């Protein structure tokens, strides 16, 4: 391939299309293409391919992320149906979901760490059997057991103190972390251990004023991988499941979708921020 100066290489033709060509060679390459219709057509085809690829995926960058991503819009905020060409409103919403995701990382106190430690210790001793995570075929069973935790639940008449002595195995990193949902109006009504096919699952039962209870359940997962939250069933009687830090989680109850997702976001944030010390 000859043009002005050194010969034009195949790499330079690609560089011209991809914007990775020395500015000093641009003229030489363009002059070469002007004299070589066959290569010019080839380069033009590559340009069209580039445009097709970029256009096909443009919506992903410009649109909102699925709520289930860790940095993505969550419940009660931005939905996954926004439009491209975002204005200030969406920018504010985007900022809001980012703040919601990270703010707890700064302000988390784990005020009820005692309960977590006891729960973790309980599960550490019980749930050792390997098990597939919620996204697998076992998810249905896991969700069904999580939902069963709410059946005919009677809150204890008196508060039960679950404070550990600080020497228990609550620091075991392999034990599932049970987050404490400190949301206005919620009250931790009790903890229920639900027998499963493989080990025990522990469920925190939360009560809401003049509304049905909901449960946050966790069990040890055999798979170390993590998964995004997924909805099982139909609202208002649905469950959101996910795998995080070697544990399967399920949040279930008769809540509107937005509320259940917001709670799931809060739970995931707390689990992610938990350092166990």
């Amino acid at each position, binding site marked *: 391939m000859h043009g002005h100066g050194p010969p034009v290489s195949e790499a330079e033709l690609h560089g011209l299309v*991809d914007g990775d060509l020395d500015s000093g060679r641009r003229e030489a390459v363009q002059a070469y293409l002007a004299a070589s219709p066959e290569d010019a057509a080839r380069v033009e085809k590559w340009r069209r*391919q580039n445009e097709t690829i970029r256009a096909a995926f443009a919506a992903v960058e410009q649109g909102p992320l699925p709520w289930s*991503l860790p940095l993505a819009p969550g419940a009660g905020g931005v939905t996954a149906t926004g439009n491209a060409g975002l204005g200030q409103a969406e920018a504010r919403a985007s900022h809001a979901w980012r703040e919601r995701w990270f703010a707890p990382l700064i302000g988390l106190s784990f005020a009820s760490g005692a309960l977590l430690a006891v729960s973790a210790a309980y599960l550490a001793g019980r749930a050792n059997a390997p098990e597939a995570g919620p996204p697998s075929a076992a998810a249905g069973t896991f969700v069904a057991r999580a939902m069963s935790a709410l059946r005919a639940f009677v809150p204890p008449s008196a508060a039960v103190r679950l404070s550990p002595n600080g020497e228990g195995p609550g620091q075991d990193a392999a034990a599932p972390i049970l987050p404490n949902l400190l949301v206005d109006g919620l009250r931790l009504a009790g903890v229920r251990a639900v027998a499963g096919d493989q080990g025990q699952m522990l469920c925190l039962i939360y009560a809401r004023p003049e509304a049905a209870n909901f449960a946050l359940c966790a069990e040890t997962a055999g798979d170390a991988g993590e998964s995004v939250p997924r909805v099982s069933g139909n609202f208002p009687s649905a469950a959101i499941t996910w795998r995080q830090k070697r544990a399967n989680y399920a949040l279930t109850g008769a809540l509107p979708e937005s509320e259940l997702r917001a709670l799931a976001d809060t739970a995931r944030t707390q689990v992610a921020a938990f350092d166990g010390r």
Partner: protein
Amino acid sequence: MALREELNLCAPRLCRYARALASGQPQPSEIADDLVQAVLLRTWEAGTALRLTGPNLHLHLYTLLTEWHRDKLAAGRMGGKALMKKENFSAGGPRAAGNLPVPASPRDKFAAALLALALEEREALLLVVLEGFSYAQAARILKISRTALIMRLTSARAALSETTAAKSPSRLAKTRPSYLRVVK
């Protein structure tokens, strides 16, 4: 800029790359979104130790995602073929092009063409064209030389032209023209 802000800025692009790589389509993909989540979480957790910012952070994220995608494919090959079939999660390649079902729409046709590329060709093409990395950056992400990257780009473009131009499955089976040219 704080790490969290940088991760937030990278997330949509990373999601775009993951979906293109894993499913060839812009729609939400379980596997792709899981990969993105895992990469963001890992980087966030290790962020302080890594001390990565700016372009280095971007390169790290894409390197991690590309490697984990390959690992997932390898696990699929060894552990269960169901994973490979799920969501068109495909290593691609000329054989895949022949095995893919006849696309129903132009969008599906394009996705099929993208997935029909060999994995290393798809990675190179998407990093340069879709994500806008320079040849040097893309080569660094893929841990290959600049020359090897350009060869993959050449091969990918030739294959993509052939696949998208094909009107019948029989044309997919044709041998690709050589992308090597004699430079005088």
